[in-house]
């Protein structure tokens, strides 16, 4: 895991809050994370606003950070977010001084509401968590980017391989959050390297501004001076 973290060039690592096993059967995960990485606690596993708020408070007390990746799940099969509960929790947490980074469906109106509530970034999904399907609705991400040019947009969940990450970045994302695509690769450290390159490539392509798509060919060499 450490080598994958290193290879990915990631700046932040997200961790979930769970009960300490009273039989001391597991060691602290954080001992395996490079202390140079910013730890971002999350509310994974919460199914309502109240539990997410409790989890965030515990995380803040343990790690002395105001950062929280807010995740309120609505359904076990899809792990799709419960946008309503997410917004409710976001409002409470912002009021309590948290820096809230919410996971939500790729929906512009929801993004606006989360930003109005005071969230520090928006983190739309690309596809269901752990599905590896890649960006399912590129138009939604592009619209979000165009309509919210100043928002920090992190694509959270659903990338499966490097090209998926590149596409997310080409659409204007500021970053991508991932786990399964790397953790379940046969060679996680190599996949982490691929992701780093894809993120950089996608970002450069976005900044460079891609050519418009056209239906027909257009010659790339001069038409004059061709031998007859």
């Amino acid at each position, binding site marked *: *895991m450490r080598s994958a973290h290193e290879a990915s060039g990631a700046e932040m690592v*997200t*961790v*979930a*809050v*769970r*009960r*300490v096993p*009273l039989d*001391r059967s*597991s060691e*602290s*995960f*954080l001992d395996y994370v490079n202390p140079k990485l910013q*730890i971002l*606690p*999350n509310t*994974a*596993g919460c199914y309502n606003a109240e539990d997410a708020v*409790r989890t965030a*408070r*515990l*995380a803040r*007390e*343990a*790690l002395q950070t105001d950062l929280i*990746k807010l*995740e309120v799940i609505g359904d076990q099969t899809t*792990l799709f977010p419960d946008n309503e509960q997410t917004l409710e929790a976001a409002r409470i947490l912002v009021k309590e001084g948290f820096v809230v980074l919410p996971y939500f469906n790729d929906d512009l109106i929801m993004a606006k509401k989360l930003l109005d509530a005071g969230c520090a970034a928006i983190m739309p999904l690309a596809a269901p*968590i*752990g599905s590896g399907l890649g960006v399912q609705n590129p138009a939604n991400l592009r619209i979000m980017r165009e309509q919210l040019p100043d928002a920090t947009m992190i694509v959270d*969940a659903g990338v499966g391989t490097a090209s998926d990450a590149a596409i997310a970045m080409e659409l204007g994302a500021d970053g991508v959050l991932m*786990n*399964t695509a790397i953790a379940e690769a046969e060679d996680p450290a190599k996949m982490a390297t691929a992701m780093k390159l894809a993120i950089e490539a996608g970002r450069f392509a976005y900044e460079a501004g891609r050519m418009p798509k056209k239906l027909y060919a257009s010659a790339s060499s001069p038409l004059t001076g061709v031998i007859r």
Partner: protein
Amino acid sequence: MKVFVNGELKDFGSAISLADLITELDLPVARIAIELNREVVRRSDWGSTMLKDEDRIEIVHFVGGGKN
């Protein structure tokens, strides 16, 4: 005195504080947090917080991932 720790019933002979509880359970103290009856108790208050019968205590730490 009986309290619930992470959902498990624990029986202690005499009244103890949260700090005593952590010592009794021999848990690592770094980067954990404690909730007593759904309210977070600051680390600085662990020593002065005495437990009562039927208290519900959650002691958490951090694990990898963030999705489930």
